[in-house]
């Protein structure tokens, strides 16, 4: 439904907007349904983000030209 995948934060903001519109109840049925479908898709993708998130931890080192360089983080 969305062309660019929204971040979790953006999804929440859009969902809030959608639910408020739906609750106002003044939209024609077809528009309501369109919003409902968009909301359902957003809920699914946001849930997926929650379910599939995996923490990434790296150690940062000053590399060549002082540029940050990521190293695996090992328990010390």
């Amino acid at each position, binding site marked *: 439904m969305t062309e660019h995948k929204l971040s979790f934060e953006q999804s929440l903001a859009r969902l809030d907007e959608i639910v408020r519109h739906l609750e106002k109840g003044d939209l024609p049925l077809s528009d*309501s*349904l369109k919003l409902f479908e968009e909301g359902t898709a957003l809920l699914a993708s946001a849930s997926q*983000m929650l*379910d599939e998130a995996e923490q990434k931890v790296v150690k*940062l080192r000053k590399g060549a030209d002082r540029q940050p360089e990521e190293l695996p983080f090992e328990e010390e």
Partner: protein
Amino acid sequence: MERTTLTVTELNNAIKTLLDREPMLADVCVRGELSNYKIYPSGHHYFTLKDAESSLRCVMFKSSASKLRFRPESGMGVTAFGRVTVYPRDGAYQLYCTALQPEGTGDLQVAFEQLKARLSAEGLFDSEHKKPLPAFPEKIAIITSSAGAAVHDMIRILGHRWPMTKVLLLPVRVQGVEAPPEIAGAIRYANEFHVADLIITGRGGGSIEDLWAFNDERVARAIYASEIPVISAVGHEPDVTISDYVADRRASTPSNAAEIAVPDWHEMRDVLDGFEIRSRQAMQKKLTQLSQRLDAIAQKRVLSDPGVYIDNRRMELDHMRDRLGAAAERKLAAGKQDFVKLAAALDAMSPLRVLTRGYSLTQDAQGHTVRSASQLKTGDRVRLRFAEGGADCTVDSLYEGEAQ
């Protein structure tokens, strides 16, 4: 009787030898008030120690003075340590001071209060300068020791609460003379390459000496200059450092910093569930209203061919219902775990009229959806949400078992 005539130098040296032989004077500890305190460009400190009746000239050489952790000022009560000897050029004895301690509180405490007062006067702690923390940080830079419990506690809690945030560790020493420049350097480096959108710097608990790096002016200024918001997390709850005052947010412990830094996974799950229930309820209400309007029209029999009209509207409604169902199906296919709840919701929706007869959502005082009596206790306030409006209620009694 013949007298020996001495030169001034000989006499002064003789007195010096006498004094230097006296063990008590080789290592004295004397209490008094500082006066006439002067720091020379050479780095040597000159002052007079006095009490109500007398005074003592003192000098503190640069090598000793550089170890002072507070700024001695005239009028301050101190204990001075050192050796008394004669300065032959002036023919005057003085205390060669090797250490100074402020009276009453420790020297670190005085240093802390002095730096705090100075930076506060400069506006480094002003609330206008505090930056808001990102609600959903993408990357967090942790500036602390890579050894020790603090870093592991933070990584564990961040991973548990919000695994979506990437954690970058910038390892630094957190105690010893190298610690302040390393911490300040890491904060500046994180800003220079904008490696994260939130910084946590701190360390686990320890003595006031262990935590001292976070009372260093260089660290305070690096935090103040940081464009990236900084959470300071030093020691245990009662420990407050200069870093805590300068930072955009103070955490009582490193673990607490991790809790402040990211949202809670379970809370966000509840927020999503809340959105789902509300949008479903709003749609059901919409469909019910339309259905009632159709019924009203059917009863009036004002249309030339009411049967066809109503049949068509019913077909449209059925079609919409199919789409609603299909949308939910897609979501189920996407692997949403609350299949049972969703199926039940769809099921409840099919005889549209039934819904207007009662369907409510119960929320606790925090707005969380109540799914089980075990979430409540007698006397709790709950909010019931109906198809239209709601009601705030108090729980009288609770019972276990499946809902019907």
